[in-house]
């Protein structure tokens, strides 16, 4: 498992709280594993929920029609990098 950065761990916890993912703990989320479909198995309802939590916590508003956002949702790592670049 790749080591999480501090911010990745914080974001993983936000994700668990927002999505009710009580079966995983923050440090179990592999930073480079896919969030949607395979991997954590998130879907579009989760994407909406997660986007809201990110907007409230970090003031970053995600956009689905922006190619950068599609790339950002690939993994915990890409999402963390996207938020840090835009907050």
């Amino acid at each position, binding site marked *: 498992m790749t080591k999480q950065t501090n911010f990745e761990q914080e974001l993983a916890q936000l994700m668990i709280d927002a999505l*009710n993912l009580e079966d995983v703990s923050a440090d179990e989320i592999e930073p480079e594993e896919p969030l949607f479909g395979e991997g954590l198995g998130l*879907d579009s*309802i989760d994407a*909406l929920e997660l986007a809201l939590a990110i907007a409230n916590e970090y003031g970053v508003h995600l956009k689905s029609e922006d190619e950068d956002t599609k790339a950002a949702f690939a993994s915990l790592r890409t999402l963390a990098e996207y938020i840090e670049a835009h907050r």
Partner: protein
Amino acid sequence: MSQPTPIVTRPDSDTIARVDGHDITVSEFAAHVLWLAERLPESPFVVNLCADRYRFLVSFCAAMVRGQCSLLPPTRQPATVASIVDGHAGSYCLFDHPLGDVGGDKAPKYDWSQSLAQLQPKSETDLPKIPGAQLCAMSFTSGSTGPSQAIAKRWKTFDVSTEINARYMVPEAAQLTYLTATVPAQHMWGLETSVLLPLRASVATTTSRPMFPADVATALADTPGPRMLVTSPVHLRALTRSSVAFPAVESVLCATSPLPQEIAVAAEQTFNGRLLEIYGCSEVGSMARRFPVTEASWEPFDALNFRRSGAGWTVDADHLTQAQSLADQLVFAAEGRFELQGRVTDMVKIAGKRASMEALNQILLRCPKVKDGVLFQPQHGEQVAERLAGLVVAGPNDYAEVIAWLRENIDGAFVPRPLRFVDSIPRAASGKPSLQALMAELTAHD
């Protein structure tokens, strides 16, 4: 036999769509339809995978011109599309964006992603009339519990139901309304509104399919007013809780599952407009409406006959090929309006997908690691939660295997969250656990 009727009944100079900030007139649209119809491969079936709503509309109508039936997959998952292709010999995939491996190698593909300006259609804009009996579309239920069920639609159904929908859904018939939708054109709710309404009513569809609140704000700001937003409770909930500022939306239309009252109230504040909730199902289409902020009961659309049948209700109409039984229990009251009072069947609906609770529970119990278990819809006060919850009796280290089993065998929308491991399921003497007992067990673990 009913006479063939026109695809679009609006004047040539009317605006039917808005693409990249420009209005498209009915005659420009007709020219695009004829251009594409000339080029489509020969086949009885076309899988319409267009993501751009205008291109979906043009493709849908071009298919009708050619007598082809549009197949509408509920998702673009490769396995879903492949099973639809397999079930319909000769079908091909029509698309407007990179497809990846969707559709597999089996189905031929037709790509029309070139810009509209490059098309250079002929000046001819007379679309042929379509016979009422022509098979136009097949939509598919999610197939989360077994193979997808196909729902066939003939032109007469679309033609007549869209006239009815226009009367009940478009408040200002005289004024052009710009329609933005968060729901896909391939789903019956998105099809009835964002694709079919502009053929009959003074509505211009927009190309976008915004998802996040910031997308919706941008999409709405890209159109002049008055605006209409077609959406679902899941999207509306996210929109009303967001801090994004939206332009005024005169009319918000919501359907697919019951909308909680507080979201209805918040929606009218968020959009500074009126919220109209629609009751319908994929087989019949839209059937009734209410203004949920002020009305508890539903106003059924005329032309639909609601009849008692056994323990429940059926709906029939001249424009439907057969009577359809409803999953909900209706109670008719004053002035022909009705209220919904629970379900007749055990169908559950999440994010526009349907599944039988019984079938989902059977799948859970077939998991080799599960000794006993139950999936249910949790209830918090008056509110039904968005997701299913699950209680399972299994070994302490089996969590990952049980979840993996569920993900493999049922649609993600129905995978329970939370899934709690318990010592036993609180079953009553009948063997059936009460919702109260299940909720007590669920919250005991919080």
